[in-house]
C-alpha cells in the first residue's frame, strides 16, 4: 500500500475535523491548521480512516494520494483552479 495523506494548506481553514477522524496522522497548530504527522499509510484501516477524513473535511483540504501523487480520495474531488478569462 503506497497511499499518502497531504493537507492542502491553501484550502485548510482550521476546522480540525481531520483530527476527529484520524487524530494519529494530524498535528494541529494553535489555530487548528493541520500538519500531516505521518504521511504514509500502511494499513487498510488507516486508509479507511484517511478516506473518511478526506470526505468529511469541509474545505476539501485533506487529500489522499496514490503512489504517483494523483489525488485518490475515493470520491472525485474537483481540483482545477479557477481559470480566468483570456488575458
Amino acid at each position: 500500500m503506497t497511499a499518502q495523506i497531504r493537507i492542502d494548506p491553501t484550502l485548510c481553514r482550521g476546522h480540525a475535523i481531520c483530527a476527529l477522524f484520524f487524530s494519529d496522522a494530524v498535528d494541529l497548530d494553535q489555530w487548528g491548521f493541520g500538519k500531516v504527522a505521518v504521511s504514509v499509510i500502511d494499513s487498510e484501516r488507516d486508509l479507511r480512516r484517511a478516506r473518511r477524513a478526506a470526505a468529511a473535511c469541509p474545505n476539501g483540504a485533506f487529500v489522499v494520494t496514490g503512489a504517483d501523487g494523483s489525488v485518490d480520495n475515493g470520491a472525485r474531488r474537483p481540483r482545477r483552479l479557477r481559470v480566468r478569462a483570456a488575458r
Partner: protein
Amino acid sequence: MTVQPEVRVHPRRGVARVDSLLPGLGPQITVEAAVAGLGDPLGLLLSGPPAGPDGEGLESHLARWSELPPLDGAGVRALLRASALDGRGGGGFPLARKVETAMLAGGRPVLIVNASESEPASHKDRTLCSQRPHLVLDGAALVAVALGIDEVVIHLHRALGSPVRVLEAAMAERQGRSIADPRWSISTGPDRYVSGESSAVARYVAGGEARPLFTTIPLAAEGPSGRPTVISNAETVAHLSVIARMGPDAWSGLGTASSPGPRLVTLTGAVNSPGRVLEVSGPATLGEILATDGMSTRPAAVLVGGFAGTWLLGDDAWQTPFSRDALAAVGVQPGCGLLGVLPHGACGLTETARIVRYLAGESAGQCGTCVAGLPRLADSCESLAAGTFRKRGVRKMSALADTVLGSGACGHPDAVVRLIRSTLDVFEDDVVRHLAGHACRAADHPPVFAVPEPVLAIGRDDTREWT
C-alpha cells in the same frame, strides 16, 4: 552526444587539470577561483563589453559566441545530463531531471523561462536579460529542442525597469535573421514577491492567479494547465547556451564538484556598488567576491541567498567558498545568489525585522500559516529589535517559528523561519543585549538594505491583485 561542440575556454582562466571521473559528470577540471564583473574577459555570461539600453545586439553576440551548434533533442538532453546544470532561481533542482520528468509524463510540455526575479535586491536575471538577451533566448530555444516543442514563454514582472522591451527587440532581431527559433511569447505578471515562485508562475501562465499552488504532483509531470510544465530560471538557460558551445566538461569544470559551472551573484547592502552582478567560478570565497567590489575588511555579517536567506558572521563568511557544498557545511543555501553585506555598527536584528515585515506582507494570503503566523513573527522581530522583548518572548517566537515551518503550500513561510533562526543564531550577543534592555548601539544607523515598503494585509484575498 552526436555533435562535439567547439571548446572555448579563456586562456586567462588558468585551466586545467583532469581531477576525477565522477559518474555522469565527465572529467572534472579544476580551475583557479575567479570573480568577473560585467565586461570582464574572465567571465562567460558577462564577458564582452557592457551593452547599451537595448542590450547586446545579435551581431556582436554571434561574433563572440558563434552560431549554436545544430543539436537535436537527445543531444541537448545529453548536454544537460553531462553538465549537471542546476537551477539558479533558488531551488537548485537539476534541469535535466525536470526535462526528463516532462518527457516521461507524455503530452506536449509547456516551457516557461522565469525571468521575473522576485527577490527585490537581486539583479542577476534582470542584468542578464537586459545585457545579454540572446544568451537567454539561445538557451531557452535549446530547452525547447530538448522537450521537442516549438513554443516558449518568457515570464517577467510588470515592474518598471523589467527588461520586456529588450527581450522583444531581441526576439524581433532573431526573426529577421531567420534563426530556427521556437515561437516566443512574453508573459508579464503581478509585481509580488511570491508571484515569482515556480508554481505561481505556472498557474499564472496557465491563466490563473499568480499565487503559489499546492501540488501533489511535480509541475514537470503535470502543471496547472494539465500539461507537463518545465520552469527554468533565466540564468539557468543562459548557462545552457554556453554549455552547448564550450562543451559540458569545460563548463562544469568552471565550478566545483558540488556546484558545476560558474554562478552569478548580486551584491547588496553595504557594498560599493549595490546591485552589482558578478560571475563567480571555481572555489572563490565570499571574501574574494566582496574584494572584487573593493571591500578589504571583513563585514559584520553577510546575508546569503536572498532576503529570505541565511545570515553568516563576516568572519565565517570571508573564508567560505561560494559553492553548494561549502555553503551547506555552514548551513546556507546559495539561493538566488544574493550577498547582502551588513557593516560593523549596523544592527542585524533591525535589518531582519524590516525584511520579515516585508516578507510577511508579501505572502499570497492563501495558507493559514502565512496569514496567521508571519505577521506575528514580524511583530516579534520588531519587538526584539526595539528592545521591548523579554526572554519569554524569544521562546514564544521560536515556538511560533516551529509551528510555521513546513506548513505552507510553498517555501515562503519556511524561508522566513530560516531567516529568523539564523538571526537568533548569528546575532546571539546582540539578542542578549537587546533582551537586557540596553539601547541598541546601532539605533541611529541608517537602513542597510533597500527593503521595499511592506504591503498591507488589507484586501489580500482580492483576486484582482493577482491577475
